[in-house]
């Protein structure tokens, strides 16, 4: 298949899956806003699980099934992609500013246009209302969903469905001329460009609205049914089935690798490398993203800074290929066989994600509660008389430790979770590890990807459990310790 055909095929798949995903996103986002505060983290957890679950394991679990028929493989790819992009859409919708035109306003405009169908002014006003209303709110979610679907790599590779990403890997391995590769990369870049520009435009807008301000018509019952069905089905197909598949061979796998000390040592070594690289990239991307989103008012300098998000939105595969070529060809060549290209690609790739997470945290954070907790812990110096009174009033009967714990929960915990999430994404990125890891510093992810082509399930189960379980266990442990420390 030529690159052009592969690109069109991927684009068709992207459009189809986004069309199916969009109503789901709307329904789920409405439902999530109705969920009580206590249950909301759980709801987000269930929603995000299929997106955060390692894609390699999902692809591998369904690989045997996909091999039985190319049509089935395409169907599986579509279904699994759907489970991955819906959370992206919901989170983006949830973080998007409320519409500037309410549904009542749109309806009124519609009535006016309907009453005077020949009036161009009324038509224009109606479409302006639509633009400032649902379209402007929907675009970022649809844009990001489309980017995630279009850039899909591991799933398409393991399920053996046509994809432009697969074409590039094959071309790179065949030693296609770099110039030719760069020319060919125009295809996927051009196809993604409108989406990337839209997403950048969206991040440049002010985000000062809270989710409570949304104005929407009441949801019919069918939306609740759709939401419930999705929230049951997605974690089962996207997480539990792959976990079950791994568990089937886990005991024999652990027994096997326990007897192979060198293999275990090799995996540990590769895990340490992957952790070091991802922490470095994740923390740096987070720090950079803070400077990109620090001011609510957009300055010209910040507008220029936000163009740095462009390459990251092109996806890690294209970035890795381009960076590899750059470090091999230019004055940067002495740095080619170092971890630098790998880390740079991960930072650039993570940057838009970090900005998105920042925006989401900002749009969902309880600013009043945070302010009060800062007053209580004595860290913020009240500048007004009202502030001093508030602080005095609030601190009556509350020990300082509890105030610090409250501040941690409201301010630091979301940030730590965000950094952990960025590191986790870096840890799971196959393209950069596959193309840019220097000699002697392979990531365990590439080892697993290798095994997945051999069908060696028992050893793979054990190694995958160790590789993917390690960061989750480590992060949980750190959070647990932190919580215990704050309780004292």
């Amino acid at each position: 298949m030529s690159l052009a055909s592969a690109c069109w095929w991927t684009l068709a798949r992207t459009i189809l899956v986004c069309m199916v995903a969009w109503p789901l996103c709307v329904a789920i986002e409405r439902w999530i806003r109705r969920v009580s505060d206590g249950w909301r983290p759980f709801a987000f957890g269930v929603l995000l699980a299929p997106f955060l679950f390692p894609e390699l394991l999902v692809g591998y679990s369904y690989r045997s099934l996909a091999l039985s028929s190319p049509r089935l493989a395409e169907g599986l790819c579509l279904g699994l992609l759907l489970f991955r992009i819906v959370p992206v859409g919901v989170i983006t919708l949830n973080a998007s500013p409320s519409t500037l035109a309410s549904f009542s306003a749109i309806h009124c405009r519609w009535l006016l246009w309907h009453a005077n169908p020949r009036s161009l002014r009324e038509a224009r006003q109606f479409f302006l209302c639509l633009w400032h209303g649902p379209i402007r709110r929907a675009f970022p979610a649809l844009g990001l969903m489309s980017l995630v679907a279009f850039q899909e790599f591991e799933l398409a590779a393991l399920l053996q469905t046509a994809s432009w990403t697969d074409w590039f890997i094959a071309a790179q391995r065949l030693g296609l001329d770099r110039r030719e590769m760069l020319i060919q990369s125009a295809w996927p870049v051009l196809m993604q460009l409108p989406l990337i520009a839209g997403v950048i435009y969206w991040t440049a807008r002010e985000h000062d609205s809270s989710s409570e301000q949304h104005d929407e018509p009441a949801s019919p019952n069918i939306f609740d049914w759709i939401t419930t069905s999705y929230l049951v089905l997605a974690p089962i197909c996207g997480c539990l089935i792959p976990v079950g598949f791994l568990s089937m061979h886990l005991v024999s796998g652990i027994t096997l690798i326990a007897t192979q000390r060198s293999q275990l040592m090799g995996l540990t070594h590769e895990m340490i490398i992957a952790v070091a690289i991802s922490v470095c990239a994740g923390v740096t991307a987070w720090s950079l993203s803070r400077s990109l989103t620090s001011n609510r008012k957009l300055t010209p300098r910040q507008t220029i800074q936000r163009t740095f998000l462009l390459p990251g939105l092109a996806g890690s595969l294209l970035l890795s290929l381009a960076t590899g070529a750059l470090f091999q060809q230019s004055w940067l060549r002495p740095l080619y066989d170092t971890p630098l290209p790998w880390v740079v690609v991960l930072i650039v790739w993570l940057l838009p994600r970090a900005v998105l997470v920042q925006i989401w945290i900002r749009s969902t954070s309880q600013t009043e509660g945070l302010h009060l907790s800062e007053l209580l812990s004595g860290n913020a110096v009240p500048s007004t008389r009202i502030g001093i009174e508030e602080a005095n009033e609030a601190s009556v009967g509350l020990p300082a430790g509890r105030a610090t714990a409250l501040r941690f929960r409201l301010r630091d915990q979301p940030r730590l979770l965000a950094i952990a999430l960025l590191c986790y994404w870096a840890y799971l990125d196959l393209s950069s590890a596959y193309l840019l890891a220097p000699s002697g510093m392979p990531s365990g992810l590439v080892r697993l990807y290798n095994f997945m082509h051999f069908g060696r399930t028992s050893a793979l189960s054990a190694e995958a459990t160790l590789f993917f379980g390690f960061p989750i266990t480590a992060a949980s442990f750190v959070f647990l310790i932190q919580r215990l420390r704050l309780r004292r």
Partner: protein
Amino acid sequence: MADSVKNRSTVLIPVVAALVLAGLWLNILPGSGSDAKTLIVYCAHDRIFAEQVLDDFSRETGIRVQVRYDTEATKSLGLINLIIQERSQPRCDVFWNNELLGMVELKQQGLLERYQGQSWQRMPERYRDADGYWVGFAARMRVYIVNTHQASATEEALGTLLSFEPSRVAMAKPLFGTTLTHYTVLWHLWGGDRLKAWHRDLRLRGIREVDGNAAVKDVVAQETCYAGMTDTDDVFVAIDDGLPVEMLPVRVTSDLTERRPSDAANAAPFSTICIPNTVGIIKGTKRQEAAQLLADYLASAKAEIALAKSKSRQIPLGLIDAKELPEDVKQLVEWSQDGIDLRLLLSARRDCLEWLKTEYLK
């Protein structure tokens, strides 16, 4: 004040992480500090089989080996192109290739170091480079894998399948690995036009193309296809798992497409496709002595026996004690006697690959 602490920490944490990373890399870097005896090996052989041999080498010699593997789907060609790309600043010391023609290509491009060591001396002429730029060892063969629940493992049944039901036959995309060698042999024997016609006909009639030889084994084992073209080591994985498969060697001739010895008594002789692993030292290596030791070790009788006894059942090419061979490898040794000499097929490989690129990438 809290803000200044926050700002400081946002700079400090990445700096510390970068320093840790740099330290880790410097520690791993070959030739750094006390760790001067470290070799960088690019290995196209299946990781699950190669790892043990390289570990044994490290244990015996004290030389640490850092290995870069490639995936099942793109291996050998991916690493060969990487070596070519890195020619001005090579980082690989020794290349363990899982086929032979890539090594001939690297020799032609002047990327290999000459070394006629003990291992080179013990190998038959057809499995080593005459000038000592590479040496072959531990081969595998191209075979048909047949699901015995769906078809009988006979040449007649395979011929019928390929003629009338090619959608029930699987093969890997011939762009990479041993399938590329298979196609190169056919190009050499039949000529380009005939191979192109055969290939297009099979694709038109729905032959199942998958992303690697392991996937061929999988689709045949799970009865999606009845037969496929793959390598002996993949078939043994299925046999060891108790799956209902058998194998037959692929036999090729310049006269007939498929094996029909009875039909072709007077025609050109049939050959099997026996593809050795090869090892070569990369030109410009700074660890020549250690590289030579590894080249000698890989093509030694000891490593060949170890690979023959491994799950991949590689066929020893040098002289070894036949008693040490497993029974199923003895059968392979017999088939490999008819193996075609691959050393002269470089130009066929180049032409075939150029055509395949246009077929799959354009």
